[in-house]
């Protein structure tokens, strides 16, 4: 059998070979392919070891399958162990070529091929490993399965690294012997595989850290899923408070729950101006002037007749217990009955400033004596 004859067989029987290759994972009965080839032809192909026929069951020869898988990149098995045996063979060839220098030309092409083969196997397997790792991480499989798969590929990656180390050790030990053979082409190939080996090691570093980070992510995700599932169980059985520190942790839950209200009608030009920010800063940092009360001399019994103290906090508490809007509440409040609208509006503003978080300021307005008040409610009512 020569290469021309082999290719002719492939070409002339392409339909049959494609069919057998595509269905290589199951047993094919001869009857199934009778439209594609006669018995005579099948026997002929079996004779040239392109196909195998055993008990009327037909399959492609394993070498054809692995050639096609290799060539069209369909073989997704990570296999670097083969490098070990190629290295052994390579060492044997180099030693022979050095010992029997007069016959070195017989060994040199084989050494070249073996070096190329190792290089190809490394790159192909690295690519396959990378594809597998990404595929597993992105799959929708359960965490347990993903973790198991990733750990498996981590081991394969370690084997891969070990093989590169063996290859590195081989290169260190045999480079001089290879160079001493004095073949330029072989030396070029040697430099080429050495350069590629450095590339391989460079690629391995991110891939290794990637798989470790994938494993960590999945493990932490797994822990999170367990945690949230447990929290849900505790929530449903009303045990969250007693069995977790959730209530303490709320202090760390600092995301904004309600929209922030900006109660200013200043032009946005002014708001964004540097002068305005400076002004804000000035007042922000300014300490409030506080009046210190002098000690009251009881004997004098100084009665403050007109200055009635308004307890804003008390008003606020009273307001929270009503369903009225704030201004209506203030108007109807007995304690404020002698206050005019301007005074009421001051109290209204003070309360909003002090307890804004607990109030809901609606867009609805109410006009009292030409002063427009927003309808403000207790936050928990509406």
């Amino acid at each position: 059998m020569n290469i021309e004859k082999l290719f002719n067989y492939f070409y002339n029987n392409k339909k049959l070979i494609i069919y057998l290759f595509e269905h290589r994972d199951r047993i094919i009965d001869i009857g199934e392919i009778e439209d594609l080839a006669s018995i005579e032809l099948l026997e002929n192909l079996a004779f040239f070891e392109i196909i195998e026929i055993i008990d009327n069951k037909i399959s492609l020869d394993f070498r054809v399958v692995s050639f096609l898988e290799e060539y069209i990149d369909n073989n997704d098995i990570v296999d670097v162990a083969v490098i070990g045996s190629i290295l052994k063979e390579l060492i044997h060839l180099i030693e022979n070529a050095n010992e029997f220098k007069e016959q070195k030309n017989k060994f040199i092409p084989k050494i070249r091929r073996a070096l190329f083969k190792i290089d190809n196997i490394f790159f192909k397997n690295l690519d396959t490993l990378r594809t597998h790792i990404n595929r597993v991480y992105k799959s929708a499989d359960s965490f347990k399965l993903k973790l198991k798969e990733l750990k498996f590929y981590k081991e394969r990656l370690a084997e891969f690294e070990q093989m590169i180390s063996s290859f590195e050790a081989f290169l260190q030990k045999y480079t001089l012997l290879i160079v001493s053979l004095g073949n330029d082409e072989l030396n070029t190939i040697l430099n080429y595989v050495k350069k590629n080996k450095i590339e391989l090691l460079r690629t391995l570093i991110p891939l290794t850290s990637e798989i470790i980070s994938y494993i960590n992510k999945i493990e932490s995700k797994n822990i999170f899923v367990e945690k949230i599932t447990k929290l849900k169980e505790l929530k449903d059985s009303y045990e969250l408070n007693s069995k977790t520190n959730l209530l303490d942790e709320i202090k760390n839950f600092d995301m904004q729950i309600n929209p922030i209200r900006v109660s200013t009608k200043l032009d946005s030009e002014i708001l964004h101006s540097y002068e305005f920010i400076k002004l804000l800063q000035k007042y922000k940092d300014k300490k409030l002037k506080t009046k210190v009360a002098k000690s009251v001399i009881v004997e004098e019994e100084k009665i403050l007749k007109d200055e009635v103290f308004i307890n804003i906090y008390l008003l606020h508490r009273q307001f929270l217990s009503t369903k009225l809007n704030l201004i209506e509440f203030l108007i109807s409040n007995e304690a404020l009955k002698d206050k005019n609208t301007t005074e009421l509006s001051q109290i209204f503003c003070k309360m909003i400033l002090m307890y804004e978080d607990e109030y809901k300021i609606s867009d609805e307005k109410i006009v009292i004596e030409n002063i427009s008040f927003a309808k403000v409610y207790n936050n928990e009512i509406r």
Partner: protein
Amino acid sequence: MKLDKQKVSKIFSILKEGRFINANSPKKEEKVLFEYVENNYEKLSEYFSHIDIELNLKNGYCYFSSLANKEQKLNVILELIDIVSFLYEIYPAFGVGHSIFLEEIFTAIKDNALLLKKLNKIKFLNSDTLESKINMLLNKLEKRGFITIKDEYKKEYVVLNSFEYLVEFFNRVEIKEIT
């Protein structure tokens, strides 16, 4: 360099609603805004501090932080426990960057009586039809800024970086007794 008024205004109008700005948002404008926050964090932080607002920048997202409204927050957290634990039942790999489809959730629940039972037990989903319940569930997450719609037609949502905020928070919660 002065801050870009338009961008600051946009950032403020999103964050003041209690939402997040995410680097992995499918909306181009949001990505641009996040990049702006990332590059001008110190200036922006100082800017907002003048109106007593704290800008927080985390890994791939930012938000206005507030420690007020504890009671309301507790309710939000309880709702989120219901939602997140439910979604994990359908998507074991649910997390940042994950795509979820309304149709997928719908089919998963229809095919699994146990899931339907669990969904019906979620109190705040007070709706009659299954589809509107799923919509409500997703809307809650979307309103809080943890997911966003990626494809209106396919009803595809994507989980945003801000989801990490929840993961970190729930991971901090300690369970005293695990049986």
